């Protein structure tokens, strides 16, 4: 039976006054989510730069980290009710959770590369074969988690209750928002510098520019590829920690799917293959989604607004906002 809406009022309306009232709190929340998108987006962008592959299974790399984070925190005694513990102990727990999440995500990314993509490379698989494999791997991991954990979300793990730190234009910015945005931006700057300045980073850029020449110059391409997946995994693990912090009950087998799509969108928005683009795209997408949701008064619109903006920007700048790719990044 086709469902007919019960209220026959306007099907779409713009709530400008609500946006005006909530503008700043929505902005801060949007930036927080944007920072998480950006970290995940880096994983897409790095792998794309090196392999020209959209690694659709990266969303599962992310959610594996989120599960590891929840398990670690649960083992440490965290649960749906906030604990009160000394700050230093809390930090220790958060670091432990961060390490667990990063390790799990990096391990899944590594395994994914070895099991799914390496055999294809060895047989010179077509780009389409890689893409289908990526989608297949994504579903496989997702439903393995489903079989293991079932269709219910994991109970919430509250790390700490966010405290208002300061007030801007009548809206409070809390400790959680600052933590997530600052930590994410710092990590991205580090990765950016890493790619620009280190030997491995140079190797990654060389492979991105011209794999054959890079190999001739003595770069071990396989090692570069594995490292790229691992770096993407580590960042996804960090993103997973922040995600669990922000959405404590959001860990469910398919919880990575939409977030993965959003992060991929962020990568495309900023210019796929471009590290700084991932940051810009992520933050922008977080803001746009939240503004759209408030303006249209319905959470169903968040994704619609995000993708409409993506299409509009790609019409004007087909290579994304910052365009150029990983290989062209200057040393």
């Amino acid at each position, binding site marked *: 039976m086709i469902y007919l809406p019960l*209220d026959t009022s306007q099907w779409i309306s713009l709530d400008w006054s609500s946006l005006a009232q909530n503008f700043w709190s929505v902005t801060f929340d949007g930036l927080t989510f944007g920072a998480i998108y950006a970290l995940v987006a880096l994983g897409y962008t790095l792998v794309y730069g090196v392999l020209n592959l959209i690694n659709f299974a990266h969303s599962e790399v992310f959610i594996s980290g989120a599960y590891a984070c929840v398990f670690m925190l649960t083992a440490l005694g965290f649960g749906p009710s906030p604990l009160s513990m000394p*700050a230093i102990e809390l930090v220790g727990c958060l670091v432990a959770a961060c390490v667990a999440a990063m390790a799990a995500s990096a391990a899944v990314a590594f395994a994914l590369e070895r099991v799914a993509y390496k055999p294809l490379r060895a047989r010179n698989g077509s780009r389409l074969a890689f893409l289908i494999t990526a989608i297949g791997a994504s579903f496989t991991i997702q439903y393995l988690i489903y079989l293991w954990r079932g269709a219910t*979300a994991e109970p919430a793990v509250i790390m700490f209750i966010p405290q208002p730190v300061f007030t801007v234009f009548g809206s409070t910015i809390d400790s959680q928002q600052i933590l997530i945005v600052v930590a994410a931006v710092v*990590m991205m700057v580090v990765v950016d510098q890493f790619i620009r300045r280190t030997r491995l980073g140079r190797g990654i850029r060389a492979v991105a520019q011209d794999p054959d020449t890079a190999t001739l110059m003595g770069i071990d391409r396989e090692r570069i590829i594995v490292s790229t997946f691992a770096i993407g995994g580590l960042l996804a693990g960090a993103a997973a920690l922040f995600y669990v912090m922000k*959405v404590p*009950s959001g860990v469910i087998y398919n919880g990575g799917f939409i977030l993965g799509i959003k992060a991929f969108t962020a990568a495309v928005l900023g210019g796929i293959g471009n590290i700084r683009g991932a940051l810009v795209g992520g933050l922008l997408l977080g803001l746009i989604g*939240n503004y759209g949701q408030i303006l249209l008064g*319905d959470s*169903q619109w968040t994704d619609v607004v995000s993708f409409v903006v993506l299409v509009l920007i790609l019409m004007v700048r087909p290579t994304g906002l910052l365009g150029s790719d990983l290989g062209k990044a200057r040393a």
Partner: protein
Amino acid sequence: MHHPIKLAAVLGSLALVATACGTAATNTGGGSGGNLKDLPAQNSIQVPANAANPAGDGKAKCPKGLTIAYIGAETGPNAQLGINIYNGAQLAVTQHNKANPGCQVQFKKFDTEGDPNKATGPVTQATNEKDIIGVVGLPFSGESAATGNIFEQAGLVHITPSATNPDLTKNGWSTFFRALGNDNVQGPAAASLAQKLGAKKVYVVQDDSDYGIGLSKTAQQALGSNVVGTDKVTTGQKDFSAVVSKIMNAKPDAVFYSGYYAEAAPFDQQLVAKGYQGTFIGPDGVKDDQFIKLAGSASDNAYFTCPCLPGELIPSFEKAYKSAFNAEPGTYSVEAYDATTILLKGIDSGNTTRPKLKQYVTSYDGQGLSKHFKWDSTGELSNSVVYGYKVQNGKIVSVGTIG
């Protein structure tokens, strides 16, 4: 060359240190409310003496293989609501079969995951099994709407112990019966619960299910000018920060969430984390221990409405249920038990085909544990009550009838 990665981790941790230090103090964020009245818990209810008993007189005779089915969520995000129901149904069948050696009724379960898109498969399967002559389910409104026609074509009688969307009985189905009051009763009851609590400003948030939309509408009508804002969320949504921001600005005394616990739990938890100090009111779809499990101590602010009886306050039922399933009866366990009992009584009195059993239920008139059962021509009960519940010390307790 691996240092930069380590550096990233170290810097990340430093950022953690920097901001986590400010978190030791307790939260004293904004929001209003927190000074509403508290409704006392109810410790006992009057159990009707003449309630139908699945055991009957113990002399029933019936052909072998007759089957009653439960169709509804066994798994899925809101599975617990289904488990409460099929346990209640299972209990009735077990008691019946134990007492009546001459009439052994089979009990079968079909899983819909509570999802309207997945429900047609199991329902078609069940209607094709000729031994199934009566069904308890489907629990949710969306899946009931999606599958009612299949039951109707098969002439298979089904009693829902929990689907409350009022429109379900407007389809002209002769096989659909509702063992509880619908949302035309529950919506106003939610409004009167808010009033009893002293809430002047209520913010209404609905999900995108048939149930959530329908209930939100009747609740808003009853709340009238006390509604200070409304919002919509999506099934499966995990982050509610935008809605929470709007609510914190509107400063309501109470938030009424029209939907299921899978979204209500993270929503309430995120509200409280932002410093919301008012009351959270949920309907029957939220009233489950899973809500408390998922939301943790944030659920302390929750009240519920439910056209369901507190089964745990019926001593005989509570004891039998607990010994069978090692759990307290849940939401709609009693209603499912009553619905199954009606089907079993029909079978015991010789109605062993689908048309006969449907006829039996249509003209049924008798007392059950939860209420008196007599349906009008559309399948609605002629009278029904709504109970209020609240979270107290991590458990859901009844606060008595509210309308």
